[in-house]
């Protein structure tokens, strides 16, 4: 059976299934933003944005955008009933104070100890930019990373130690990639699910840190 890596939408759908009912969730830019489309409709999830919104809804219809109502990725959004608006300092009090149950973030690298690198590569020819990444990494009650398992050239992004500058140390709880669902435990990385057709050895070969396979591992279904 050939390996069938998950598409971006499939990763988002897989993660969506794990978002608990009633959770306060911050969605990072890019892939994490897709997750909102795939949370089961019987769950009520409250989406937070660093620029002062709780209760973001889907994108507005074309022509109905309000330039004063945008998310952290600067895209136009809507509000759902029950939404609240507040200022930046309060938005980050929610983050730093551990009130956000779950931050879904993209990453450049994740380490076996939960270290997160998602803001800089160390390449000094570009000006650095960090945004709210370090606050979310340090503050959210749980951090789940969504990313491709390797860089485009096949270089592992899951490592024993990050080589890129850290965003936050020891904060990642789970990693959802196109190849696997991995839990970060005190004993290291535990593979919970693998993409259809993938052998553990092959997964390990594409990973820069030692993996363990859970006894009750399953094939990812989406």
């Amino acid at each position, binding site marked *: 059976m050939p390996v069938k890596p998950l598409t971006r939408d499939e990763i988002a759908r897989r993660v969506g299934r794990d978002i608990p*009912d*009633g959770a*306060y969730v911050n969605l990072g830019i890019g892939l994490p933003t897709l997750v909102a489309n795939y949370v089961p409709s019987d769950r*009520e999830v*409250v989406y*937070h944005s660093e620029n002062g919104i*709780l*209760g973001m809804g889907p994108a507005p219809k074309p022509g109905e955008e309000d330039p004063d109502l945008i998310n952290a990725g600067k895209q136009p959004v809507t*509000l759902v*009933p*029950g*939404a*609240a*608006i*507040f200022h930046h300092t*309060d938005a*980050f*009090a*929610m*983050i*730093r*104070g*551990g*009130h*956000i149950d779950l931050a879904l973030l993209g990453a450049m690298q994740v380490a076996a100890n939960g270290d997160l690198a998602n803001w800089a590569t160390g390449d000094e020819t570009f000006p650095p930019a960090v945004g709210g990444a370090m606050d979310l990494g340090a*503050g959210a009650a749980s951090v789940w990373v969504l990313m491709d398992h390797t860089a485009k050239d096949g270089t592992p992004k899951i490592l024993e130690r990050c080589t890129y500058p850290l965003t936050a140390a020891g904060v990642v709880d789970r990693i959802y990639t196109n190849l696997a669902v991995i839990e970060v435990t005190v004993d290291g990385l535990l593979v919970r699910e693998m993409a259809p057709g993938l052998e553990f050895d092959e997964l390990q070969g594409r990973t820069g840190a030692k993996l363990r396979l859970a006894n009750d591992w399953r094939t990812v279904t989406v």
Partner: protein
Amino acid sequence: MLDKRVASLADSVAGIRDGATVLIGGFGNAGIPVELIDALIEQGAKGLTIVANNAGAGRTDIAKLMATGRVRKIVCSYPRSAGSVVFEELYAAGKIELELVPQGTLSERMRAAGAGIGGFFTPTAAGTKLGEGKETRMIDGRLHVFEAPLRGDVALIKAETADRWGNLTFHLSARNFAPTMAMAADLTVVQARRVVELGRIDPEQVVTPGIFVDRVVEVANPQAAGQA
């Protein structure tokens, strides 16, 4: 479904443990969650640390809770006020511990706990008896003292309007400590004069976003605090 409404006052305070630190909103008699305090008295937790601006007045609410003997310690800025007889008796008898904190520092320490701040330097109380024993630092030529976050296991607060997500508005100066205490506790319990349908509170007029609230109970006609 995200529904923080609970059916009864008893449910609203269920699970509060002996030894808990309980933040209680209110300043003077405005914003005191009388019914939640009565429910806590009924619930029976003991060995409590109470954080509130005042140490009760008359024989109701905070004074009544203290009179049960279940308050080990009170953290407040102004324990001695008109009618604070219960506190004064307990204090004179050595039956209650007092941690006196300047009012702004009290509020800021709870805010720090709610905002994930590990502590801060303030000029308030620097060079005074209440600053004794604290770490000091000169900042911009002024003496500051270090203050630690003050977290509650529980906060009991009173609101004007709530929805099932816990979004809150308050009535005039009854707002006082409530928004800060809501941030600072692991379990924030709200008695609201009206519980309205989700979406009825204008998002721009929400004062405390529901993320800081855990339980909401409607008390349509709350008693006045501080009665004799």
